């Protein structure tokens, strides 16, 4: 065995591959001498006047820290910190700066409280410590390493839609959003599908509708798409004087399997009247006959009249598989709860306030 073959790492590689025992005593890591190149004269090939000037006016000096900190070690230290604290270390020294620069993509994400895109296309971001008006391409591109708690857009107008696409082109990634809120009239909701496919990765998607033509939304196909969102919250803030909605329309919407999210769907209807006295009975029937209850909205809160609640009480008291369960965990004080269990153990909980009798809360457990 020649001594030169022991001086590099291939010595270990080859021996491990062929199962030959190592001789650690003789192993010496290969030493390389770093040569500082001599500055070139003007008449020599490869001379760059620009480089020569830069070296003359901004000479790069090596850090005088004796210990060389590797990028891997520094990354493991900085991963314990939030992004702000980690990037701050770039100002410590040249060595820290050059070690941190290549690992920036692997650091933790910066948390932005809110990103708002205004109707005129201006983007404002509110961080924990400061708010920024994002104007330059560079600042918009920095959203790549941000986790946005709330993304709020006033409408899905063409200008805002284009702005979101521009953000995507600059960041080369979908915006990472915890909660996405849209307040939107009906006719533009179809743009949402494209938005989820191309621009936004969202955990909770909240859609608030206060438009009088709410029925058009729940009967059209504008909400029939799948997202990777973990939750979908639909809120309707209608006016009490709106005409009541037909129970069949609402029940078909709540059982629509084409509205797909990763885990749970919630709906809250305030000020929405149903024209059906036995709405509770119809909802329980929908649950009991559903082929796959996981496609139903898991929690539905809906306004009810006193008569509808009394009818529900009579129905549930007489139902053989409805169990009175007001004192179980998860039932707020003052509420009466019944649990209806299917043969495949899916359970529906129906709740209403014992005195106010103003709404139903249905939840699938």
């Amino acid at each position: 065995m020649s001594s030169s073959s022991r001086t590099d790492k291939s010595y270990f590689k080859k021996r491990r591959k062929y199962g030959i025992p190592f001789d650690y005593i003789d192993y010496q890591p290969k030493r390389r001498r770093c040569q500082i190149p001599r500055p070139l004269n003007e008449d020599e090939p490869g001379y760059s006047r620009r480089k020569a000037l830069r070296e003359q006016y901004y000479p790069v000096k090596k850090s005088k820290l004796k210990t060389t900190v590797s990028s891997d070690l520094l990354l493991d230290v900085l991963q314990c910190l939030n992004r702000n604290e980690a990037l701050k270390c770039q100002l410590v020294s040249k060595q820290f700066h050059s070690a941190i620069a290549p690992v920036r993509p692997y650091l933790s994400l910066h948390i932005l409280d809110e990103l708002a895109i205004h109707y005129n296309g201006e983007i404002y971001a509110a961080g924990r410590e400061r708010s920024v008006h994002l104007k330059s391409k560079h600042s918009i591109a920095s959203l790549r390493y941000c986790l946005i708690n709330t993304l709020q857009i006033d409408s899905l107008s063409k200008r805002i839609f284009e702005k979101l696409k521009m953000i995507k082109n600059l960041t080369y990634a979908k915006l990472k959003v915890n909660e996405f809120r849209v307040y939107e009239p009906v006719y533009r909701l179809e743009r949402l599908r494209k938005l989820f496919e191309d621009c936004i990765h969202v955990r909770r998607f909240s859609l608030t509708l206060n438009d009088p033509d709410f029925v058009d939304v729940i009967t059209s196909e504008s909400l029939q798409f799948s997202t990777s969102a973990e939750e979908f919250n639909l809120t309707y803030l209608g006016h009490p004087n709106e005409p009541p909605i037909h129970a069949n329309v609402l029940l078909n919407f709540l059982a629509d399997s084409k509205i797909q999210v990763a885990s749970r769907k919630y709906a809250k209807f305030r000020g929405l009247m149903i024209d059906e006295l036995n709405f509770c009975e119809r909802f329980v029937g929908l649950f009991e006959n559903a082929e796959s209850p996981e496609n139903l909205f898991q929690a539905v809160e809906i306004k009810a009249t006193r008569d509808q609640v009394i009818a529900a009480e009579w129905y549930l008291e007489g139902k053989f598989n409805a169990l009175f369960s007001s004192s179980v965990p998860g039932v707020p004080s003052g509420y009466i709860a019944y649990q209806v269990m299917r043969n495949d153990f899916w359970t529906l909980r129906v709740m209403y306030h014992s005195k106010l009798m103003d709404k139903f809360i249905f939840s699938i457990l």
Partner: protein
Amino acid sequence: MATESANGVSSPELNERDVVITTNDNRNFTVKIGVARVSKTINNMIQDLGESLDLSSGIPLPNVDGPIFEKVLEWCEEHKNAPEIKVEQDPHTRERKWFTMTEWEEEYFRKFLSHLWDLAMAANYLEIPSLYYYTCQKLAERIKGRTPEQIREMFGIEDDLTEEEKAEIRRTNVWCTY
């Protein structure tokens, strides 16, 4: 020469035997094999050498010096039967979850506060995940909440960045508050 076969290397009797480890300043440490095996690097060496392992002539560690190895051994002695640590991070922010340290571990790092970088590098070379990640966390704990000037002072680092370079770093980090 050890007589155990490669299969017998993991036997409890062998763990009780001594092995000599030589650091880069030519200091020899006589260590129980069971303790030395907390380091995956040394464990691999023992397994690779198998029958040809010479316990008396020693295993060389060219990248670790004596005083640091002494401190590492103290950790290995305490953690020889400890289970493997699990490194977890927040799935959304990617920030690493912090470990909860025992009183002994807190005291250990308090004692060797000025050698944290060396300890981390030695733990990295010797592949001791518990010491490595705990030291990284301790270093992060020291950096957290401090200004670059304070960090420089704490670790004895010279400020070799020019004002232009600092301004450029500040400009590129839009979200940072310095």
